[in-house]
């Protein structure tokens, strides 16, 4: 029996990047808080790691993935309101967005339109090249990249991007379809997202820490766009809305 003070019980004392399979890794430095206590507690480094490839796997676009990132994206220095120049801490790059980016909608999310940089490439190779350049320059706070399924032989691109991400401090999110979950990936953090009533179910596919079988339910306020519409008038739309709006637990 090993004494409790043995280095085997506390491998982080030997080297910060060592951890037991039952612990969450602490060595990767401090992450950027996601804005949700419950999620932070499950992430190694207590937040989104900077300088690493983070994969978010979605069943379809628009299920609330950006509401999940909202505290991170909307957090901006107070100077953002008046300063004409956009600094690094505010800039957000969007690469290969699935639809037209609606700037007024992002203003609702709390992201000033001037903070966005919108990139569109013709093919996967050019897109990865652009992502690598953005990560190298390290002049954006976050890079959101939508990457559809890769063809065979293009998986090296992911490894390359992960290496490029490690050189800087950029928060690098790659949003991919759910079907990519079975493919191998060099990303140290892979989460699956699924829409649920008033929130998101987050599954931990891969993380530096113990395996977590059941998914984490994260309550998200409905998009800020949906709240406070016509604030003074509390009026429901007739009939159509009433039919299916009774929650299932009440009906049963």
């Amino acid at each position, binding site marked *: 029996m090993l004494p409790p003070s043995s280095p085997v019980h506390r491998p982080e004392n030997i080297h910060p990047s060592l951890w037991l399979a039952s612990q969450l890794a602490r060595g990767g430095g401090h992450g950027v808080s996601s804005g949700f206590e419950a999620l932070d507690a499950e992430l190694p480094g207590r937040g989104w790691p900077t300088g690493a490839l983070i994969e978010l796997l979605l069943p*379809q*676009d*628009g*299920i*609330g*993935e950006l*509401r999940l990132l909202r505290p991170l994206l909307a957090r901006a220095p107070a100077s953002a309101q008046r300063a*004409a120049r956009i*600094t*690094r801490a505010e*800039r957000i790059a969007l690469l290969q*967005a*699935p*639809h*037209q*980016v*609606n*700037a*007024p*909608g*992002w*203003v*609702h*999310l709390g992201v*000033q*339109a*001037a903070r*966005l*940089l*919108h*990139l*569109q*490439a*013709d093919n996967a190779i*050019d897109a990865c*090249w*652009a992502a690598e*350049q*953005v990560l*190298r*320059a*390290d*002049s954006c706070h976050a890079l959101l990249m939508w990457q559809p399924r890769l063809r065979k032989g293009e998986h090296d691109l992911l490894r390359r991007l992960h290496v490029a991400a490690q050189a*800087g*401090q950029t928060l690098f999110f790659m949003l991919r379809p759910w079907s990519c979950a079975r493919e191998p990936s060099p990303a140290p953090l892979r989460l699956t997202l699924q*829409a649920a*009533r*008033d929130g998101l179910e987050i599954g931990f596919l891969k993380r530096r820490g113990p395996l977590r079988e059941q998914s984490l339910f994260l309550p998200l306020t409905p*998009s*800020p*766009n*949906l709240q406070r*519409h*016509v604030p003074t*008038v509390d*009026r429901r*739309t007739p009939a*159509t*809305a009433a039919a*299916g709006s009774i929650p299932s637990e009440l009906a049963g």
Partner: protein
Amino acid sequence: MVFERERVTALSAPARALGVQEGMRRGGVQLLAPQALLQERDPLREQGLLEQTALALLQYTPQVTLAPDACVLLDVSASLRLFGGMRALCRKIGVTIARLGVSATLSSGVTATGAWMLARYGNVRTLRSRSLQRRLDRLPVVLLSAAQAHLEWLHGLGCRQLGQLRRLPRPGLQRRCGRALLDMLDRAYGDLPELHEWVVAPPVFKARVELPDRIEHTDILAAYAQGLLVQLAGWLAARQLSIKQLHLWLEHERGRQAVVPTELRITLSVPAWQEDHLHTLVKEKLARSSLPAPAIALGLAAEELQAMQAASELLFPEPGGSPEDHQRLLELLVARLGADKVRQAAPRADHRPEIANRWCSVMQPATTLPAPLATDPARLPPRPLWLLEEPLPLRMQQHKPFYRTPLEFTSPPERIEAGWWEGRPLTRDYFTARDARHAYYWIFRQWRGGEASDEEPQWFLHGLFG
């Protein structure tokens, strides 16, 4: 191998192995090495190349001068600190010279004449006058160009090294060999001051390089373009300028099948002078352009220039890239993806969502953009994060719009009625809706002939809430 007046003056190592030597005649060479490439020496081109080298080296010091025997002298005493010491400076100069496609021996010394003689002898770097004198003492007398005429007499005396020459009595030496030899010796040892005529950068930059063959690979062209960009960097540094627009042209076949030169213009959003940055831009631009025919020559000219603005640095640098890095990033992205693919938001104040959401190229200066929207989102009606390119018609199922699953309304309608002043009236009721899988959509009901008409309204999906 190279000929001058029918004699070999320079040759490659394989030719030497075949027994060819300096001073041989053409006939003898052809007998020994029939497959050798014979070139006539071209002093004009050599001089041109030397001047190009001097121009490129102007980025390290403003004081550059040409010396006989294909030497370029640089006064680096003021540059050592800036470039991080002698070793780092020599490494940088070596890289620059290699990019020009030239090989060189590098030597340094506290006097220009001394350094010049050391360079012709080999790679010798000295930093102090004592070590310079020690090295000079051992150099052969031949290197002293003023002593060429008296070489035989000096060798007859047994005087073969500079140290021995210095020990000879000066009055006698002056009477026999003249003042010039003694002056040169004194200048090399630092006993007499030196005067130089520095190279002055031309007022306009225009450089051209002939390619050795017809080339259509853009990678190879980019490598030759680097030689031109090195000169441009030197010229920009010497004139304290930064560049806004580059003009690169590729000359094609002349004569009967003449093809018009391909012209490429590279515009920078923020003036730059860094050679590496310009090179990556040129490389991407070349890779994207298609050549109508192989190129035989490459030219480069600086078109729009501005005074160089030194970057101001913070005492405590922020993590991550600087604003300059970001500008360079944007230019690089524009060079490969195209200006219309790298965009910034320029929203317009309009009620119609397609028109309100407008994006323009990042190359458009910020001052021409419209003022940002009102910053209080709570007072604005809801807007989705994504808009579809074209509104998607929805079919109805049990009096509910249907998209994958039946949609449920989660907000009261918002009426948008606009565009009548442009002759395209538009009447829409926008709703937010949720499907059975809890995703939110932005849908609208379009009244075609106005609300009063009998026509059934049509439902469309227009956006997604992320």
